[in-house]
Structure formats: C-alpha cells, structure tokens
C-alpha cells in the first residue's frame, strides 16, 4: 500500500480490452451473446484463442470487435481455483441477483424483481458474455463465425440484439454525453488529498484494476505467488512486485437489460402537460436534466471543468451545478443531476485554510445545505451501453396500436469497484428516495413503490424561482429491469491465464 508507484508508468494497451477505451461507435451493429459453459475444457480452449480486440488504436479502426467477460459463476464453471475466485470483490462473487437485500438496494423489486427476469437469475445466470461489434452489414457473418467457434464449449442462453439509435436513447434524448475522462497517461498525481473543484478526469484505477484509484490506493483484486503462473502469463502487481496480478488491466462490467416504456413515458408527460406539446417537452427535459439534443439545463457557468471538453460533443458536458444550488434551472432530482452531481470533496467556499477548516467542521451553514451529496469523483461510471428495439421513432408512431414492441437499453458500465461506483449510484442516488433532501426516486428509473411510513416516491419536484415547487405526482414506472449480471472484463493476458489455470 505504501509503495509509491513510478509515475506515468505506461499502460500496456495491448493487454486491455478495447471497450475500456472505446465505445466502438463506428461499429454500428452489435450483439451480446450470453453463454453457459457446457464443456469446461472446450470452453477454456476457445477462451485461450478468442480473437479479443485490444485497446490499441489502429488505423484504420477495426471492422469488427470482440470482447469477453466472465461472471463469478462462470469462473467456477471454468474450474478456476476457488481461492482465486474468492479474491474478487464480494459483489462480483455474489452476483447481481444474489439476494433480496441487494435487490432492495438496487431497486430490483416489484416488476423488476430478479424472479421475473428473462436472464440473470437462478439457472439463467450467464457464465460468459461475448460482446460482438461490427460495421453495418457485417455483424451476421461475424456472429456466425464466433458462434461456430464457441459451440463446442458453450450453450447460448440469450442473444441480446442491439439497434443503432445514433446516440439517442429510446425516450428520445441524446445519450452518452457525460463520461469521465480516463487518465490513460497517468498524469494525475497519486495522493490522497481533498479536491476543491469538480474534475471530469478520473484516475485510471477507478476503472482499471492494478492502478491507483482516487484515494491513491490499489483496489483489492486476486494476486498470487508467481509459482501459480509458471508460464508467466500475468503481469506483476505494481504495488506488490513479487506477486502476479490477475486483475491488472481488467475491470468489472455491469450489464443490465432495461426495458423502457416509451409510449407510457410520453403519454404520461402528455397527461401531466394536459396536451400542451411545448410544456410536455419542457417537463421531459426537466426530468432528464437536458433537452432532447443534449443541452444541459444548468447552463454552462463560463468556467471550464477540467477534462470537460475535449470534443465538440463533450462541450455539453462542460458544466457544474454550482450556480444552481436550489435546482431552479435543473431540478435537484433530474436524472443527470442524480447520476452525476458534479461536485467536489468540500462544498463551495473560499480556498483559504481557515475557510476550509470551517467547512470541514460543518460550521458554514450555507455550505452544509449543499453538502448532502458530495465527492462525486468516487462514484463515476464509464458507460458503454447500447439500445435495443425500435427506439423512440417507431414506438411513438405506434402510439395507439400498443404493439408493445420492446425497446430499451442494454446498460453497460465499467468500474473497478462495483459497490462504490455502480451500486452506490444506483442505490443512494437513483433509487434512494431521499437524494439531496427530496422524497422521490429517479424520475426515469424509479420503481415508484412507497417508502416506509407510506410516503409516496412517485413524484417529481421542479423548483421554481418565485414560489412553491411545481410537482408532478403519480408517475408510473417507465423502466423495468429484464435481466442483469456482474462480469469481470479481464485483461487479455489474464483471460489467457484463466483459460489455462486450474
């Protein structure tokens, strides 16, 4: 722990699966194969030579890409040594649908109960996910080829198809704008010090195992004596050079299939707006925190966020809520404000030592008001999801026919710490009905079941400058979980190791 790593020691990108670095947006076709091990030896044989795409930038970019992730049940099915399996994080080892307590935390209750999932619970927990990406028109052949390769070792329990929604999620809003900038160059200093300003750059160790995280520490992961890796397949651990590091260059991958009730969403907004089309759009934007094209409601404050704007699109990501503490511009409970509150380790105030001490001790009443949610940098997610189904256009044109064709999001996020990143954001910030002093859950994702004491959580408050909050009440559930699992997306050398080790 106390070992100071050499700064900027470069990352072996050829050992990192490409998804960590790229969204593969140019590969507009994708499908996710969820497999269970049928024949462990054959399964391992395929994993040992699976054509995994690395994070190395190529010119031209690849025509197809393949990524492989494994669940903890998968590790066991592949006959990986139990003591190694047990060294992964507790959430990964237990699995997403492991118990009622986790379901309660994640909001997987009622219609989203794992007992009702299409996959991800009981016998339908996948062992391996194979994520396939291809240029338009090339997926079918690519998938056929991979399926043939896999056939000896695996049975397919689910094929998650995706559709190219051109950066718009099914409700019709621009998606994937807010992403942390990963510090691939390792220029961020490794130290544990309060950050006084929101910063969009995250330490590499927040997303890749084997590197220092925002606390300046290495997230625990399976390490082993080199004797257990006789072919020296694995990299050595940076913080324990005498150990082989199974986690290095890998990360956890959270996959959740979310059905979005697009018709229900717009019909409800229409009802709330009493048919006023303009108001309907404004209410929807208030719930999301952005307009449909992605313009944030909290207008750019002028000052630039570090790591905020490296591309024209990420201009839309270059803002904080500091100038809007009460949520008059962007409601406190808006979806993007909940998922990324964009604040620092200390509430805003002077930079002087005394001023900081004063806030640290809680004596600054104005600062305390804004301190219910803090330290965003420990709760960032790298999102890599893809839409499925018809998306917004078709779903809306079919408004009255209620064809009910499923559409939604295959939510994918990457993180080094499932609990502190995905589970925290999902439970404390989205499903939790008490975010920032409100009594309502996320306007898009909430399950709408009342809190104990019977206070409803199905409202949405829109603070007004000059009077009581505007309130939407009785919102129905718009998003249902259809399946989900926690995977490990290993480094490529670690994947080869897992394919040989027993």
């Amino acid at each position, binding site marked *: 722990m106390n070992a100071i790593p050499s700064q900027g020691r470069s990352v072996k990108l050829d050992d990192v699966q490409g998804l960590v670095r790229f969204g593969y947006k140019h590969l507009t076709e994708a499908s996710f194969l969820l497999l269970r091990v049928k024949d462990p030896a054959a399964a391992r044989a395929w994993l040992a030579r699976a054509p995994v795409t690395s994070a190395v930038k190529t010119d031209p970019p690849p025509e197809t890409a393949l990524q492989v992730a494994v669940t903890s049940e998968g590790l066991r099915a592949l006959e990986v040594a139990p003591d190694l399996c047990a060294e992964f994080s507790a959430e990964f080892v237990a699995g997403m649908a492991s*118990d009622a307590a986790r379901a309660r935390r994640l909001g997987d209750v009622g219609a989203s109960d794992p007992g009702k999932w299409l996959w991800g619970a009981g016998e339908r927990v996948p062992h391996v996910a194979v994520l396939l990406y291809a240029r338009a028109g090339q997926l079918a052949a690519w998938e056929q080829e991979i399926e043939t390769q896999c056939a000896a070792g695996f049975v397919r329990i689910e094929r998650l198809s995706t559709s190219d929604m051109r950066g718009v999620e099914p409700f019709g809003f621009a998606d994937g704008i807010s992403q942390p900038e990963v510090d691939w160059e390792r220029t961020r200093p490794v130290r544990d010090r309060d950050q006084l300003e929101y910063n969009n750059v995250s330490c590499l160790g927040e997303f890749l195992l084997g590197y220092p995280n925002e606390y300046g520490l290495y997230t625990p992961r399976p390490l082993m004596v080199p004797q257990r890796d006789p072919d020296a397949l694995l990299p050595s651990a940076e913080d324990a050079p005498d150990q082989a590091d199974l986690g290095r260059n890998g990360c956890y991958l959270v996959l959740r299939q979310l059905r979005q009730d697009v018709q229900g969403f717009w019909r409800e907004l229409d009802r709330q707006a009493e048919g006023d089309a303009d108001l309907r759009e404004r209410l929807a934007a208030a719930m999301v925190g952005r307009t449909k094209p992605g313009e944030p409601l909290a207008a750019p404050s002028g000052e630039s966020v570090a790591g905020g704007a490296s591309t024209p699109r990420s201009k839309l990501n270059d803002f904080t809520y500091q100038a809007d503490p009460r949520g008059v511009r962007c409601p406190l409970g808006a979806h993007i404000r909940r998922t990324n509150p964009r604040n620092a380790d200390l509430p805003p105030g002077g930079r002087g030592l005394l001023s900081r001490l004063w806030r640290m001790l809680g004596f600054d009443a104005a600062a305390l008001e804004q301190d219910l949610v803090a330290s965003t940098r420990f709760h960032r997610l790298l999102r890599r999801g893809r839409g499925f189904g018809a998306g917004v256009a078709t779903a809306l044109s079919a408004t009255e026919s209620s064809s009910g064709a499923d559409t939604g999001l295959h939510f994918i996020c990457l993180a080094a710490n499932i609990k*502190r990143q995905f589970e925290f954001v999902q439970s404390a910030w989205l499903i939790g009905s*008490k975010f920032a002093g409100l009594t309502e859950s996320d306007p898009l994702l909430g399950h709408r079941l009342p809190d104990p004491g019977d206070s409803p959580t199905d409202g949405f408050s829109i603070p007004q400058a000059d009077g009581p909050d505007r309130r939407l009440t009785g919102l129905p559930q718009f998003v249902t979980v259809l399946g989900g699992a926690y995977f490990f997306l290993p480094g490529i050398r670690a994947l080869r190791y897992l394919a040989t080790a027993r």
Partner: protein
Amino acid sequence: MTPQSQFMVVARVTLGRERSLRELLETMNSKPGMADPANAVLPFGQFERLHFARLAVLDDPTVGDIEAHGVPRPSLPVYLAFIGSCDGPANECIKDLAQRAETGLRRIFMHCDGFDAQGDLVAWVQAHQRPLAANYINWVGRSVRQVKEESALRRALAAKVPRVSLASAAQAQQLRRALIDFVDAEVSAGRLGLTPPDPTPLRWQIAKLLHLVAIPLVGLILLPLLIILAPFLIFTLRAKERSDAEIFPPPDRAVLLELQHLEDHDVSNQYTAIGSLKPGSFRRWLATVLLVLIDYTARHIFTRGFLARVQTIHFAFWAFLDDKRRLVFTSNYDGGHEAYMDDFINKVAWGLNLAFSHGVGWPRTRWLVARGARIENRFKHFQRRHQLPTQVWYKAYPGLTLADLKRNQRIREGLERASVTDAQAQAWLRLL
C-alpha cells in the same frame, strides 16, 4: 425545550439461554430486524417519548484479535444490550418502560444472569445501566411529539399549497397568510397539533453549564503536565502508530448477508459495533480523553443538526464495556450502509480516526487523524467485521430522514413567525 438522552442497559446472557432469547426477540419484529411498534413483548409505539430503541446480542467475534498484541484471548461474556434514545432523562424513560411493559421486559431479562423474577424490575434495570462515554444527539430539544406534529403539518400544507407561479412577492405574503389561517383552522378542529415546547428543565441547564466550564478547567489544570509530557506522549503515539497491528480481513460472506438482511427496510438504518481496545494504559487513557472531548463537543457545539460535516446521524454513542477493555458504538443514520461509510471516509475520516483508532486492528493512522479510515478498503472491512446484527430496532418516525425533520421544523418556524419579508415568504413557500 425538552432535552434528549440515551441509555444502554447491559446484562450477561445466561449460558444456554441465548437461543431462546434470540427466538423471543424475533417475535417482536414485523420485518427482519424491524420492530413491530405494537409487538406484544415491548410495544415501543406506545412510548411517546421514545425516538429509537434496539435490542442487540453483543457476541463479539473479534475478541481473539488482541492476540496480535501478544495478549492472550480473554474470555468475555455475551451480553444483551437494551438501548434507547428518548425525550427527557433516561432514568424516567427506563422507569416508564419497566412499569408499562413489565411483563415483556421480564420475559426478555429472564434470559440474563442474576435476574430475579420476583424482584424490583425498575431497580434491576437501572442497576444494569452503563455510563456512556460520548453521546451525540442530532438536534437537542427536538421531541418525538414535535417530529410527528411537524410532519403532519408539512403533509397538510404540501397538499394545500397551490402549485402555481406567483405574480409578485406580495402574493407570496398573501399565500402565506392564507396558509396560516388554514393551519389555525386545522388546529382548532383538532386535525393538526402544534404543541408549544415545554420549558427547559433548570437542572439540565445548570448541569450543562457546569460541564461547559468544568472540562476546560480540568484541561487548564492538566495543561502544564501535558506540556511536560508532550515529547514523551508524541513519541509513544508515533511509535505505536508505526507498529500496531492492522487487522482487516474481509467480513465473512454469510455474516455480511445477515447484516444486510436487516438493512434498508426504512430510509434510516441502525449500526451496532463492538471491538477491543489496544492493550496498555496509553491507548486506554488516550481513548478516554478523546471520548470526553467528543462528548464535550457533542454536548456544547454539535447540537444543531450536524456532527462536523455529517448531517445524517440521528443519535449515536460510545460506551466502554468490561473495565474499558471493549468499546461499543451505536448509531441511527439515514441512507444505506455504503453511503454512510463513504460519507464517513470522505467527510470525517479524521474524526473516525480520533474516535476509533484505539481499537485493535484499526487501519494505521498518522498523527492520530491522517490515513486510518482513508484507507478505504481496510476501513470498510474493519467496520463491517466489527458490526453486530441488531436483532430488534425501533424508529418512531419511519420514512423520515433528518433532512425531512429539519425542513419540517423550518416550515413550522416560518409559520409561527409574526412577520416576514417578501423574500422570506417566498423562501418559506419553497419549503413546501
């Protein structure tokens, strides 16, 4: 204003009776670990001065950790702790409980050593009360009755207030007056209650004042001695910080699941933890002094809704057990466990280190406040491993967090204020 207090009654569980005790406690719940307010054994809901209460079997799985300091594993008893946070003096609350729930309490304490089935219950319970080393109350003076009345007030006002844009600031004044009239009518009709606070007990005020002065005085008297000893104390501290063993294996999965099974049934949760103090008089004294200081700040400074930056703890306390060989910590907090711990690490790790680094196995600190709890993973493992399941937990106001209580309180204050400015009237309306 009615001051709050907390109590902890501790009794040894009789050998061989633990299972039967656990079964009895189980019957008091409506959900895992959540007391049924009307349960037949101890109907908590009938005690209108009780904020929180819990019954927990203190069976410490970490007593052997002290072997890391070369001290043989002691044989320490399993206790039953009965803990409450209430309005008014703890003794009165205990008496009230013992009188009105006598049969139930007898059924519980029957499982404990030395309980006399025919004897005086009140005297027995009071004799088993333990002193608290440090005691934190989120908002001194906020009674259960106030919480409930103000919650009802807010609900009524939130349903009544017209949710329209206001044409002018003057309109906010009008609206406020109309709502005041509405509340007055509701109060007259007996549908809302807004009981004025009771007078603050003089004895409590005097005791507080004496405490306020006495502790700094004692400090002043000891200061010369402290200055003389400082080099030695600092040297000892740093030497121990460098060499004390850290013990942080991940908590056992089944144990963790049992704890989680009891959590997130309300917007608040309970936390009960136990651990051994590092051996030797240095740590023993340091822990004692620091807890006196924590208690002092909690009694005189942090009485208005925040403990440094943490605004989510309703009640908490530290108490020594077994001749200061062990320390118990309990709290009632808002939100989930993970958020609670992240709040701790990110907002008050220094405070955690001051309070807990004298415990065997705590992640290594520097200068008493740095590192320690900031070593995220070690701290998280440590605290979960020292946490004990709370078999029965009661909260008088389910569904309400401290943010709710504070807002409701401000709603009432704004309602009762004789006159307000236009801006204040607008701000008040926004609370609804």
